[in-house]
């Protein structure tokens, strides 16, 4: 359990500006919850880059290679079949299956990586119990930061976010 301070904004620009300035003020911004992707938020939070594309590339290329290998094995080694004198390894005709299956598995690999990186499926999360959090998927922008330890700093943080345009501030354990 971490003690969090949730600052809620009604406007995406004020929210992004507050997130940027909060970093400058050395508040420990943990995460941000928004109803649509707010540009630059990932960079502001300095989160790890996604490996989705790498996973997709590997999944796609490996599958395409395996598919071609299967075609080669069946048509050249296991069941060579002379069809009008065409070469057994008719690579131009063999291209479609590796291409289509490669793209399919790349998509599956990408989706699987998305789930892993996002920690999904995870139907329960402590934040879901927080009052007002349901609006993060609708029309509110919520910044989550580690709750400052001492009261003075806490007061300063509350003032800071109020001045930045926060519509609500909540202390929660999540």
């Amino acid at each position, binding site marked *: 359990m971490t003690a969090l301070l949730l600052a809620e904004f009604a406007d995406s620009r004020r929210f992004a500006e507050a997130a940027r300035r909060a970093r400058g003020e050395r508040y420990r911004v943990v995460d941000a919850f928004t109803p649509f992707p707010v540009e630059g938020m990932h960079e502001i939070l300095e989160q790890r880059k996604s490996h989705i594309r790498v996973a997709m590339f590997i999944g796609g290329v490996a599958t395409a290679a395996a598919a071609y290998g299967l075609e080669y094995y069946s048509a050249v080694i296991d069941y060579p079949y002379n069809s009008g004198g065409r070469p057994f390894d008719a690579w131009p005709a063999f291209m479609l299956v590796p291409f289509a299956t490669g793209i*399919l598995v790349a998509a599956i690999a990408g989706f699987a990586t998305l789930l892993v990186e996002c920690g999904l499926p995870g*139907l329960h999360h402590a934040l879901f119990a927080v009052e007002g959090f349901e609006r993060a998927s609708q029309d509110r922008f919520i910044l989550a930061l580690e709750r400052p330890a001492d009261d003075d700093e806490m007061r300063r943080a509350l003032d800071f976010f109020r001045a930045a345009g926060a519509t609500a501030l909540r202390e929660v354990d999540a």
Partner: protein
Amino acid sequence: MSVAAIRTEPMPPERVRWTLPEARSLDAVNAIVTAPLYERELWSWRAWWIGFAVSGAMTVVFLVGVTVVLMRGIGVWGVNTTVVWGTAIADYVWWIGIGNAGTLISAMLLLMRQKWRAATNRFAEAMTLFAAAIAGVFPIIHLGRPMYFYWLTPYPNTMTVWPQWRSALIWDFWAILSYILFSIIFWYVGLIPDLATLRDRARSKFAATVYGAFALGWRGSARHWHAYETLHLALACLGVPLVVSLHSVVGMDFAASLMPGWQETIFPPYFVVGAMYSGFAMVVCLAVLVRWGFRMEGLITLAHFDVMAKVMLAAAIIMGLSYATEWFNAWYGGDHAERRLVAFEFTGAYAPLFWALILCNVVIPQAFWFGAVRNSVVAVFAVAVAINIGMWFERILIVWNTLSHDYAVSMWRLFIPTVWDWVTTFGSLGLFALMYLVFVRLVPVVSMHEVRKLIDEEGAS
């Protein structure tokens, strides 16, 4: 070609808004889109129930038709030893064309940064899924021995045989299978954040549980959105070539043969543009119905119809050029069979259908040169319906003309559709409508998170 058709679109001036004022706030978007799911009392649903009953009855007719074909064989159709492909294969090509367009439109417009796609991509992608699923039925029931269709898959078997990888029909199988599964993933990924919105707006525990389960626990955190955007863009990049390859393969089903009128290098791109064309027309029809049925005038605006009409106009011109190229090549190539086929197209037994095709696909869409037509929802809808009918004529004529009029004159024989041809053709329309009607009751028809982003950006400009 299809890429160029969209790229030549003039970028909308900054002030053009893809939403009307009543939909221009985040909560207004949520309210408008979720209303059909959560505020059902706002509608009488009479039109929906009528549609449901009619399409349900047509679906039963379709199932009866499929059962009869499976039990008595494909001889119940009008196919004969000369025209071995009848309406089933034409219907397949027509449906797979429509099935192509949703992902093509959605993915390509995403790559082109066409913001207006936000309001249309969800129901276009749903159209793709249902149309592609129906398309997949036709080649299977058209097989002489449909119970062996799984022989298309490579699996170790006691017969020790393998699929013939050089066959265009094997390509078809893999292309369709990959495409349908890919489209489901693409559609579902885009749906997850909206399912979370539905979960959070739910008024009953049941709705919250079901939508919550499908939302997988989405919280819209910065990490979630980063992963989402990365994946969605990468899928779009892969989706476009997959779609192009799929319909190219459908074109090669014909072009890889030795028949007059079929063995043409123009077929793959010509089929892809045709797919985009009929798909856009179907999207427009669905957009009109969704907009009218769910009062989404604020989200699907006249500007949307204007821009989609321009895309269809460009596609109509490309289709006209493709037809003309075929006729020119037949004449210029000098091959007797090819020339005879074109003469048969223009004047033969199916000529009335052929001229209807030209009228629907090339002539009528020229009305889109006029702004007044593009800005009239009724007119755009009417032209789109004409295009869909014209594209169906095109698909049946590609099959009927060539097969009924090939090299050996002694083989010439016409295809006359039987009642079972019509049952499976119109029945499949009923099944499509039924699936669509169920879809609009269960899933938000417009992508809420993308429209929210659009509104936010428009507010900034």
